[in-house]
């Protein structure tokens, strides 16, 4: 199964008494945009960090590129965009990109080219030599995305990539993501914007650390007999609460 970029099996994790992830299974094949949707605090970010190998799981296994995580070397093949913009504000965008490019072992001769490519993708080319401290929230978000793309990875893990980005640019970014997908790359995207969820090829609904439902957007809508993903989400949530109440 060399074409599956991520295989997570029965992943569980708790912080203190709180069960954050409860036996989650997730398989991400090549060439797919996989959406993780759920309210904040549902465990999306913890799942992502477990997949990256930054968080130790209590039980279950995670494999990325056929390698059991945590594994340091595999991280070079994963482009990661964190939920918060972790940028060096006193440096310029180009310097931030250079730093992460070097850390990701981008060859020196390719680095400038990759910076132009990544910056062009998020429409920051003209602002590259400005310090990040002068950036707007949306620009910082775009720079974070560009950093995730700097080593041209096969797998992108994007934690809330379009928060604070205006609709037009969001449209552009999704177009780019789809283009990347066509080249065989895969993306794991968390979001709680429901119209974005519709654009994913496959969705997993997470709530209270439990995978409530999964499937293609169309299949989910059919399964719950509703018209939008938002309604799927609400309905699934109500059913979960009802089940908890019955217990």
């Amino acid at each position: 199964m060399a074409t599956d970029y991520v295989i997570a099996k029965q992943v569980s994790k708790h912080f203190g008494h709180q069960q954050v992830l409860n036996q989650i299974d997730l398989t991400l094949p090549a060439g797919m945009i996989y959406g993780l949707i759920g309210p904040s605090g549902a465990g999306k970010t913890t799942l992502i960090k477990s997949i990256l190998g930054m968080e130790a799981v209590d039980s279950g296994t995670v494999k990325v590129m056929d390698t059991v995580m945590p594994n340091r070397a595999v991280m070079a093949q994963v482009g990661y965009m964190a939920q918060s913009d972790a940028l060096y504000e006193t440096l310029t965008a180009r310097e931030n990109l250079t730093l992460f490019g070097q850390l990701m072992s981008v060859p020196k001769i390719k680095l400038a080219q990759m910076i132009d490519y990544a910056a062009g993708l998020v429409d920051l080319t003209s602002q590259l030599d400005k310090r990040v401290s002068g950036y707007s929230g949306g620009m910082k978000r775009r720079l974070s995305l560009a950093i995730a793309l700097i080593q041209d990875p096969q797998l992108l893990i994007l934690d809330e990539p379009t928060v604070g980005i205006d609709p037009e640019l969001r449209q552009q970014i999704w177009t780019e993501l789809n283009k990347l997908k066509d080249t065989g790359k895969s993306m794991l995207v968390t979001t709680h914007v429901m119209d974005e969820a519709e654009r994913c090829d496959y969705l997993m609904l997470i709530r209270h650390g439990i995978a409530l439902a999964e499937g293609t957007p169309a299949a989910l809508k059919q399964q719950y007999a509703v018209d939008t993903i938002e309604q799927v989400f609400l309905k699934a949530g109500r059913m979960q609460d009802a089940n908890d109440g019955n217990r």
Partner: protein
Amino acid sequence: MRTMAIVRRVFKQMLRDKRTLALMFLAPLLIMTLMYFLFQNNTTQVASLGVHHVDQSVVNVIDTKNVTIHHYDSSQARKMIKQHDLDGYLTQKNGQLTITYSNSNPTNTSLIKASLQSGLVKLKMKTLVTVTKKQRAALESQQAALKKLTAAQTQATVTKLKTAIAQAQARGDQATAEKLQKQLKQATATTSSSTQSAKATSYTTKSHYIYGSSDSTFFENFSPAFLGFFVFFFVFLISGVSLLNERTTGTLSRLLATPIRRSEIIMGYLIGYGGFAIIQTVLTVVFTIVVFKIHLVGSIWLVFLTNLLLALVALTLGIFISTFTNSEFQMIQFIPLIVVPQIFFAGLVPVDGMASWLQAIAHIMPLYYGANALTAVVTKGAGLGDIGVNLLILVGFMVVLTMLNIVGMKRYRKV
């Protein structure tokens, strides 16, 4: 490679933060300058002493440049001291002198004490001198009489010898003439030597200093320890706060989402901030030597080496401490806990004289070893062999803290 990427980033960030740069490079110079003038200037401190009914001869000898005398008409020392804000009060009843100290300022108390003591000694000496003078006059008159007598005797011998010589020469007896000539010389010599022995020997002192010179001040004594302290303090603060910022802004976590090794991050920090610590050290050391003309006995390279090791310990300590804090404010809270106590063990107070449990504490303070080594090099010209143990202990501190830091980063990434 990745380490160098971190180093370059640290350099860029520091160079853009002009305020921090200024703090790191100029603040030590400013404080050193202040200290120089504070400790250099040995202006005499003056204590005020109230006196009541004390013999003028006593007052005269106590009245030195360190003590000013005020005369009062009351024997109530306590009241007068409070009323006139005096440092001491001296009263006399017959031969008994009674002194009351305010003791609100121990320095002034000891000034009066010393003045009083030396004054009384002087007084005793004076009486002795008058007695001796009288004796001397008597002796001298005796001596004069004696001298007259000897002179007369010598004169007689000389005349006798001279006539004998003349006779011998007339006879052509050269040998006898020479013999007599010798006797004549001896006779005149005894007179001159006897006059010499009557003179009293007066002693003069010539001072030699093994370390430093007669102009050595407290500043020269303390400055090596302070050189070490500044480097320690600023590097501790800056490295601690900057790693803290990395944690709170999420960049540390982001860095760890790349294939970088945890040790590469720590090494990047060591090299990056270590570089600034070197610049700071060179600047401060050269400044104190050139501007304040501090007498550096040992090798300047050893000073740099010791300071660099101290800086690296401070760096690893700062990073280590920052893992226990969640904000800059909490980082500042560690300064009185971690940094300030170290200065007490840096040699300002001799550690040998401390209680044994305090000495034990001194031996867990990095600055104790660093400052000791610095002081030894600067004031006594210690070589690498003399301070080697201290330097090795500093290296030990650094290695242990570095390893703790690398392990501590596991909190943010498991590998």
